[in-house]
């Protein structure tokens, strides 16, 4: 499964596990993460789950931490690391 697909699947899982729902019609690269409907707990769970599934946490590995604002930036961080 492609990294993006894994992220989308676990994003939905995180929404469900925190009883949240998507606050936009669909998740696009321009979706601002803080406005997506996934709250801070959900986001923590998402990244922790991604670490379980993909075997890495890109944020711990970064020399200089770069945090995403949009969903597209978030996916890019994982895709770049997975290469």
């Amino acid at each position, binding site marked *: 499964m492609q990294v993006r697909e894994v992220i989308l699947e676990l994003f939905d899982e995180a929404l469900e596990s*925190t009883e949240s729902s998507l606050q936009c019609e669909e998740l696009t690269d321009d979706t601002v993460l803080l406005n997506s409907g996934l*709250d801070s707990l959900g986001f923590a769970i998402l990244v922790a789950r991604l670490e379980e599934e993909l075997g890495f*946490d890109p*944020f*711990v590995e970064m020399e200089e931490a770069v945090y995403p*604002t949009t969903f597209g930036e978030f996916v890019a961080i994982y895709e770049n690391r997975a290469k």
Partner: protein
Amino acid sequence: MSCFKLVPFNPENTETVLAWRNAERIRLNMLDDSTIGNEDHASFLRVLDTDESRAYFVVELRDTPVAAIYFTGLGGKEVTWGCYIGSEKAIPGLFVGLVIIAIKYSFSFPATESMRSEVASHNANPIKLNRFLGIPETGRILRYTSSGREVEFIEYRLVSGTIEPVLNKATKVIPSSIRTACENLKLEN
């Protein structure tokens, strides 16, 4: 290396603190929802200098300011804490990390028997997090903000002797980057 650093409020971080604190999204969750000016903040810093029962910090993650965290009642049986996230970036696990920091700092004082917080009832994120971590709700208080709004605040209280399950649950849901940062918590003098 990923680490959290607590930097006391000081004249050098005033601009950052006030930019965060005066943002509408932060003020609307505070009991004092007024805009704080430089003079008032400078007076506040002078009070903090002489009051050992209160500590206000900028939280830095890998040397970048990301949040503020504060404590009152230090040295007594009950410590009250609060925080706000200033960063507009999505930093995964940051809020959970702040709860871990709050627990570690509050209970580092030998006299502390409980750690308390108040959350505005419309502030969904911390309400959900407290519920998830198992931090008990211990009361509801109707208060009036400085602008005259009536707001119900939910009180949460964590008693020493019950902190381990909360810390364990919090540690499980945070990614490695935040877990490492919490383990490397530094206090700047």
